[in-house]
């Protein structure tokens, strides 16, 4: 429906709308659509080389024997990373939010501390944890030495992914906690009062009042976390580099195949292949997030 425009001539409206739209379309939406287009080409990082259509060659290449092992590893790491981050971050954040929703001394301070990493930035976070997990002389190495063990931590292929997951949760917990806190504060206190009169225990209140009424917050948080962690790479890049098999995820594979990471020269590589990985990742994120959304919405109605 079109409401009557009260400000006289429409040209002012149209000009400013077009201005705002053009920034977003040219620098945001056009590149997103172009990913699909250039995934069928052999476009390179130099502007004056000819660009050829190669059909689905980049996609065949993704599943070819030469790349399959590498890509399956990246895909598997992405799924493990996203699954672990989503589950642990939400469980810990939910419990912490319930705790912080009680009458605790210094509650605001605790919340502020947990939220702090959000503004520190990935490099600061990466450096702090590299320092703690410094294999030759960090506090973690000291604790390990007490039990006579030693480890390369981020350099240990068996441990790197777990540690990266831990740091990601450390960094992202604050946002999840404040979202859950907001959800908790929206629950009517009368419900707790009535159930208290009826003799409900603390656990029963948590299970039968808090948990179902918090369902919309859980859905929002889970979805944010899944979409975010399936595409996240900034922290992994800082902690273990762009091309470490132990922590390779799809987003970093896009970065590495498009721009060569830090090791090999990226100028001659085909970026069409990187765009094809983007599309594979996009399809995966869409399918997973829609599945989870449908499941969580259904569960909200059952509760």
């Amino acid at each position, binding site marked *: *429906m079109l409401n009557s425009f009260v400000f006289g001539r429409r040209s002012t409206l149209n000009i400013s709308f077009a201005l705002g739209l053009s920034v977003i379309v040219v620098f945001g939406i056009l590149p997103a659509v172009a990913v699909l287009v250039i995934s069928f080409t052999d476009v390179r990082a130099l502007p004056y080389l000819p660009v050829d259509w190669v059909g689905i060659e980049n996609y065949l290449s993704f599943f070819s024997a030469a790349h399959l092992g590498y890509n399956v590893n990246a895909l598997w790491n992405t799924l493990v990373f996203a699954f672990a981050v989503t589950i642990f971050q939400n469980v810990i954040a939910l419990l912490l939010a319930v705790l912080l929703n009680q009458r605790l001394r210094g509650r605001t301070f605790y919340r502020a501390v947990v939220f*702090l990493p959000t503004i520190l930035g990935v490099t600061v976070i990466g450096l702090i944890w590299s320092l703690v997990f410094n294999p030759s002389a960090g506090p973690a190495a000291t604790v390990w030495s007490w039990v006579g063990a030693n480890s390369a931590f981020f350099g240990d292929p068996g441990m790197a992914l777990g540690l990266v997951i831990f740091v990601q949760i450390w960094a992202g917990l604050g946002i999840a906690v404040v979202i859950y806190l907001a959800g908790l504060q929206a629950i009517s206190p009368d419900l707790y009062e009535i159930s208290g009169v009826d003799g409900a225990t603390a656990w029963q209140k948590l299970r039968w009042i808090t948990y179902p009424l918090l369902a919309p917050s859980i859905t929002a948080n889970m979805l944010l976390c899944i979409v975010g962690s399936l595409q996240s790479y900034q922290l992994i890049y800082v902690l273990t580099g762009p091309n470490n098999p132990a922590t390779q995820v799809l987003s970093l594979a896009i970065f590495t195949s498009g721009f060569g990471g830090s090791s090999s020269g990226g100028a001659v590589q085909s970026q069409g292949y990187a765009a094809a990985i983007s599309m594979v990742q996009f399809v995966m994120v869409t399918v997973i997030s829609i599945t989870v959304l449908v499941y969580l919405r259904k569960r909200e109605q059952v509760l």
Partner: protein
Amino acid sequence: MTAQLTRPLEGALRGSGGAPAGRRRRPVSLGTVVQYLPVAVIMLVYLFPLAFLLNTALKSNAEFFANPVGIAHTFAFGNFPTAWEKGNFGAYMLNSVLYTLVAAFLGTVCSLLLGFPVSRGYLRHTRLWYGLFVAMLFLPNTLVTQFQLLLRLNLYDTQLGYILIMAAGVGVGPLLVSGYVKSIPRELDEAAALDGVGYWRFVFLFLPPMIKPVLTTVFLLQAIGVWNDIILPTILLPDQAKFPATLGLFAFQGTYSSEWSLLAAATIIVAGPLLVAYVFLQRYLVASVVGSAVKG
């Protein structure tokens, strides 16, 4: 926002305090331990690394290698000026501030210019525009194409190009603005128009004070994203003089990878202004994230 939130919270506490209140009044009950112990553990996990960072920054390199985990006793404050000088952090911080402020400002203006008229129904195809706003939340990874775009527009390795790319990442902005504008009565538009106020004057001067909370939210959300970005500047800004602080610190780490006390001092130089800003901005930041998640 925080003030509004705490009121129902106090109510909730008083309400739920009925049954367990008797238990809680005892000096140190099991319940208190169960409450405070996990919080204490979490605080340790968050504050220990920061304390250790500060401790490391105060050691001379020799002391760090002699006793990496012990408490600093050399108090080598010289690490800070050395790191500042070698790392060129003043320039990087200025770059970061420039990118963050300009990109987040442009993005907020775009969100306003798009969100307001669509919410009011001043344009045809309202549902199409809403569809576009939602679609902007689910886009594929555009590293390659954004790089190609700037390359072909001759904006590669320019601050303007990077800022425009970051400004376009408005995310939930237009949706948040259009949602909030619904709470502003349309009669205000009509009254202003009757007084001869033009559209631009209304949108840029009259509207912003009325929808300040949502504009703050949109601005801060986008600012956090720009501030934390490291991959896009790696690709789009190869010239070291244009590095933001994230990338500058990362490059510094690459150069001085074994001088941990210097690295720690550099990290504190970058994190320090943020901590100070955080003390003042914390309330708004928290409120912003909550506002966006509930809508999104």
